[in-house]
């Protein structure tokens, strides 16, 4: 039994490591072709991060992780929720409105935070629910509908923001009403471990809770079983009694609700308002991380940290290596591609290996018992 676990572990880790190596190789090739300084780039990436940067990496990872969980819920069901981007925008806007109003009108801080989180989940779910209804009711591919909804969300939120805009003195940025300090979520200091005044987002707790909830829901409950079964074989799930249409809708709603939480650490730990410059692009990062981490709670956590690491180190690229920061996008893109290829190869190899192993074990059993059996071809 132990031998099998080690092998499975090895196989599980083989793919991402292989992907990393391939990504490094291809990126080096691109750098060589562009006549950039390969050595300087890698020195920058492998240089030990400063404590301040470590905090930044963890914080980035927190947000990425939430996005990845949202995407992963969909992936487990064979649904491609590319709309995480639009969903977290809508959710962050609504949550910021509610939190801004509540905290400035006397509601206690913790209550404001909780209400805002709920509002965020509901609005994210609403936005993804549109795509879910279109899929279940009209057979519209969620890939295209969620992408369209992203663009619609961007414009819609911009429109609404203009309507409620709160111009802070001396600033050009339009934002929602800033949240009062009573509702700010305090950061967590790692001062004992790493010497730095910077703090980790308090809502890292939220990310951990979401991760645990995701693991529990999918792995231990009946609902989770139905969801995984539908993703594995829609026809078998249907024949087994799963109400597939309802499941698709619920999965999209859950995915949207999780997506809604993506902006919350930023909202309550950093920006304290929603504005034009609220961080974009977190949705696609989440998809990549979910793919990299293979929809597994721990795998995605590791991948999120990796993403945060790469992002932070890349900041120094223009200064220290004379290369654009955007190189990190290339590295990330190549990583995702190589990892999905690697996973596919490993999966197929694994199936063949298991079939051989089962047949061999059965043959051994048979030899021991001396029982006849038909040949299977």
């Amino acid at each position, binding site marked *: 039994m132990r031998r099998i676990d080690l092998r499975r572990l090895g196989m599980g880790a083989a793919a991402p490591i292989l992907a990393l190596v391939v990504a490094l190789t291809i990126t080096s090739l691109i750098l060589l072709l562009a006549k950039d300084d390969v050595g300087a780039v890698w020195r920058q990436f492998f240089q030990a991060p400063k404590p301040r940067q470590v905090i930044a990496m963890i914080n980035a990872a927190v947000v990425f992780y939430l996005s990845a969980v949202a995407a992963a819920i969909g992936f487990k069901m064979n649904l491609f929720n590319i709309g995480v981007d639009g969903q977290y925008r809508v959710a962050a806007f609504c949550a910021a409105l509610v939190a801004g109003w509540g905290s400035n009108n006397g509601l206690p801080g913790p209550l404001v935070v909780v209400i805002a989180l709920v509002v965020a989940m509901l609005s994210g779910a609403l936005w993804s629910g549109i795509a879910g209804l279109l899929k279940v009711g009209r057979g519209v591919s969620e890939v295209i509908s969620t992408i369209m909804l992203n663009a619609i969300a961007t414009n819609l939120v911009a429109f609404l923001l203009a309507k409620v805009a709160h111009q802070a003195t001396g600033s050009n940025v339009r934002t929602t009403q800033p949240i009062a300090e009573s509702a700010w979520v305090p950061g967590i200091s790692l001062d004992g471990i790493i010497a730095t005044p910077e703090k980790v987002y308090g809502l890292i707790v939220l990310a951990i809770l979401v991760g645990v909830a995701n693991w529990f829901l999918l792995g231990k409950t*009946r609902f989770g079983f139905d969801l995984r079964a539908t993703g594995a074989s829609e*026809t*078998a799930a249907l024949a*087994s*009694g799963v109400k597939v249409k309802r499941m698709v809708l619920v999965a999209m709603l859950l995915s949207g609700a999780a997506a809604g939480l993506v902006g919350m650490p930023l909202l309550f730990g950093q920006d304290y308002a929603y504005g034009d410059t609220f961080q974009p692009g977190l949705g696609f990062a989440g998809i990549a991380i979910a793919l990299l981490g293979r929809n597994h709670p721990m795998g995605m956590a590791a991948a999120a940290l990796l993403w945060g690491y790469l992002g932070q180190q890349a900041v120094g690229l223009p200064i220290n290596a004379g290369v654009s920061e955007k190189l990190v996008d290339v590295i990330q893109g190549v990583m995702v591609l190589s990892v999905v290829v690697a996973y596919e190869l490993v999966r197929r190899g694994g*199936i063949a290996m298991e079939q051989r192993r089962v047949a061999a074990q059965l043959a051994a059993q048979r030899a021991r018992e001396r029982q006849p059996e*038909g040949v*299977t*071809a």
Partner: protein
Amino acid sequence: MTAAAPAAPPAAAGSANAVELHGITKRFPGVVANKDIELVVRRGTVHAIVGENGAGKSTLMKILYGVQAPDEGTISVNGQQIALKSPTDAINAGIGMVFQHFMLADNLTVLENVVLGAERMHGIGDAARAEITRIAKAYGLGVRPDDLVADLGVGARQRVEILKVLYRGAKILILDEPTAVLVPQEVDELFGNLRELKAEGLTVIFISHKLDEVLKVADDITVIRRGTTVAAVDPKGVTPRKLAELMVGSELPSPQTEESTVTDRPVLTLQGIDLAGPPGQRKALDHIDLVIHAGEILGIAGVEGNGQAELVEVVMGIREPSAGTVLLEQTDISDWQVREIREAGVGYIPEDRHRHGLLLESPLWENVVLGHQTQRPAARGALIDAKAVQEQTRDIVKAYDVRTPSIMVTAGSLSGGNQQKLIVGREMSHHPKVLLAAHPTRGVDVGAQAVIWDLIKDARRGGMAVLLISADLEELVGLSDTIRVILRGGLSEPYDPATVTREELGAAMTGAKGADAPPPHDRPQDEENPA
């Protein structure tokens, strides 16, 4: 279990054998499909290769057609040794294959399907059209080049497959289980076609496990068992029984009915069930009335596509009938959902276990949960009780003879027979009131087939009602207490399996009242109908 020395008939002076295979061996992960196969096919004959499900016949034919390469052994065509690395090589050597599962693109026309890959021969326009029409006439195949394949029935599709190989100038035709989807009348038509091909000097190799048909049409027979050749016989000098024994190695226990266990307590009742078909077409189910009592097996015979799948879907709740009621004992379950119906005690052995019965990449114990997520032992409140299910799985594996090293392996790594036994065990262990068994022994090796038949009979003795849908007339006759035939969505009157003949069933299955009135849809243009 020893291999009888192949008694090859002497080759006619001066003519090379059409095909010779010597020492062919092929291994797959964990399984030896072919071992040391010997085959000699005389030119201008119909040569049958017989063996039961899982004996290795299909693999052998794939080797002969270049889809797989043998690990060892030689192939000779018309006296010359060749290596077949791809279907193109086989086609160039004059070999044409008609697959058991038709290789036709539904959305393309007959012409497009036929010329695909052979566009250089007559182009893809009028010249090709003319050639196809010529061949169809010459061999009595009755297909039109511009028909859409999706519109054709099973018999016609098979003739398109034959046309495909003739178009390419095949002189050696391989047919893989051609009669598996045909009713007796269509089988006779096919054999008529084969005799015409033989008369034109072509060679036909014919794979089957239906011994009576083989004896009717073959000139030579090679028997394959457990992946290797056991005998080459002359059909004139062998009885069906002897042939069966060669095929199986020992006496095959055929399903025998014992004393009746049928009670008069109805368990499943369908009254006036109608189900609309696709828009603009006839009803999928037309006024179906049936009753199954406790302890009774009702067998439904029919050609694929006459409503069997729809019947299953209505009973299981996957689709709601447009009219009529479904009663489980006294309760109306017509508009219930699948989950509720299953919970109420309807078990289901699906026709396509890979698509509807299993999660191939999940471990066995999770597959045991499938279909019973809301029932004990799997369900504990809203959670899944993994430990209890695993224990149940171990019990099933033991009681139902599922050969597997552990319950943690994935379902996809088991053989077909063991997968099916697992499914049967899973359904039975919840003691259903009625079991829906659709083609329960399809693609299953003989040993597992016997086990499954026994299990079904045991369950019947225990008072379970069974709705058995099958294309295997032997299975239907052996297991059922009553047989009805489904045709164009409607059920025939009941037949007594003890007295009904195969011809009667075949006639009912095609809607013909006699042996010479096939449905107008796939009627060949000029044919003589041997009775």
